[in-house]
């Protein structure tokens, strides 16, 4: 434990971890209940494209070398999120189509930038799978700013976001500006993903948004409890994952995801043991009382 206090980079990593252990699952709650979990994958891949673009550009533009690639990742993620919103409106009946469209464009472009930028190097590997030594002061500042932004938005617009997630049409008829809210939400998601990926890695960041929520779904009895449990699981996974990654000298993203999976599994077991029936929305009619 002492090492975490002693070394600057570890302290950065721990603070970052605690912050994203909160923001990722909180946004994840809305994402999961709206059945948009795959969007997080699309956004994380487009973040990678941004990072590859940065690495490519910094070969020729030396001013960029000092700057964290996360910023370019954030720009790409935000742009990608706008594109997804747009596509969701075009394919109202097949909203999930936005995901493969963005995902494949992101990977295609990303691969091109990567090969232009000398192929895979150690940096890129860190972004793919997460590393606790990758978190710089700059990155920490970005994460802190975004966490504050998320907190303010949630305090102000919790009701509106909850209503939209539950019933978009009804929310519209209640005078909630659904379109702007959706936009705000997806940009927020993109930024959280872009800033989480140093610790968790691009390939695993979506799991930090969905696994804690999946665990919370097992035990929560209300929307409020969903938040509580999701954050508890998210924080526990991040903290225990980081500590074990440091001592075992393995990727932090991998350990965080394993910790989250372990908690998800425990929640399932708990539910089973507590005798609460597992709820299947599709079979709702037969199992309902009355």
């Amino acid at each position, binding site marked *: 434990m002492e090492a975490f206090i002693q070394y600057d980079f570890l302290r950065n990593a721990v603070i970052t971890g605690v912050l994203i252990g909160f923001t990722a699952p909180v946004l994840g709650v809305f994402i999961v209940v709206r059945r948009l979990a795959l969007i997080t994958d699309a956004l994380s891949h487009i973040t990678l494209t941004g990072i590859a673009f940065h690495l490519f550009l910094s070969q020729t533009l030396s001013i960029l070398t000092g700057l964290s690639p996360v910023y370019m990742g954030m720009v790409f993620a935000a742009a990608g999120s706008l594109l997804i919103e747009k596509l969701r409106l075009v394919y109202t009946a097949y909203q999930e189509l936005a995901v493969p469209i963005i995902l494949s464009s992101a990977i295609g472009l990303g691969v091109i930038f990567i090969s232009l930028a000398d192929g895979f190097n150690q940096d890129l590997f860190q972004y793919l799978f997460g590393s606790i030594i990758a978190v710089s002061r700059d990155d920490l500042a970005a994460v802190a700013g975004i966490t504050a932004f998320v907190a303010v938005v949630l305090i102000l617009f919790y009701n509106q976001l909850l209503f939209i997630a539950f019933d978009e049409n*009804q929310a519209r008829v209640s005078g909630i500006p659904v379109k702007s809210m959706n936009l705000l939400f997806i940009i927020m998601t993109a930024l959280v993903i872009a800033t989480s990926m140093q610790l968790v890695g691009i390939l695993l960041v979506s799991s930090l948004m969905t696994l804690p929520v999946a665990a919370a779904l097992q035990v929560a009895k209300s929307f409020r409890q969903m938040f509580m449990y999701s954050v508890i699981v998210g924080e526990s996974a991040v903290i225990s994952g980081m500590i074990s990654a440091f001592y075992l000298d393995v990727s932090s993203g991998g350990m965080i995801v394993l910790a989250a999976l372990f908690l998800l599994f425990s929640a399932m077991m708990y539910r089973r043991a507590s005798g609460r029936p597992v709820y299947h929305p599709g079979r709702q009619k037969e199992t309902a009382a009355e």
Partner: protein
Amino acid sequence: MDDNHISTMVNMNNITFQRGNQTILSSIDLSVHKGEFLGLVGPNGSGKSTLIKIMLGLLQPDAGTVSLFEQPLTTFKHWERIGYVPQKAASVNLGFPATVYEVVSMGLFSKVGLFRFLNRHHKKKIDETLQQVGMLEYKHRNIGELSGGQQQRVFIARALVSEPDVLILDEPTVGVDAATVQRFYQLLSRLNEEENLTLLLVTHDVGVMTKYVSHVACLQQTLHFHGSAGDFEESDLISMYGENVEILSHQHGGHS
């Protein structure tokens, strides 16, 4: 807003709506006045739900204008004054881990605005409304764990909780048991008479039509009839539903 002088709650002017090259609604003029209980009838696919969605701004008409509370729809802001129970409201996200209480409280969100906490008065109102639809004992149950009819009652409560001036109901009682339906219409009728609540109800239930509504509108792409329930003739129904209307009752009650 001071609106005792407002008498036209909904006004639709020359509404036309097309999907592809199929005309769903053509040149509809319809207004609902304060205190009316308007029944909107028409066969399946005649455009009733479409008309209501246009009224609420959920669909854009190809031509025509809508105003609510004598304000153009585009600038209308007082959504808390309108309650809406969509057809098959239970088609919302059922895996959603929200309690009955949380769902009904959503009906208050446009009223409480940015402030996230409901006060004691709001909470009491939620309880009262749940009591009215007979769902109070399910307050802390998960919405997804209720039967279809119970869910529908919760959605009715959500529409009623903000004490709207206009309530728009698109076949609200489908799947609700007869006793509850009975109680529900008695409640509507009481709110209509005592609180001067304006009601627009889409229904295929002619019993309800003849017993409770004050005005009738028959829709089949165009408006075939719009007037007081007393003037409503069976021929209007026959011209619309075809000859086979025995299921429709003969007496139109004395209501007008």
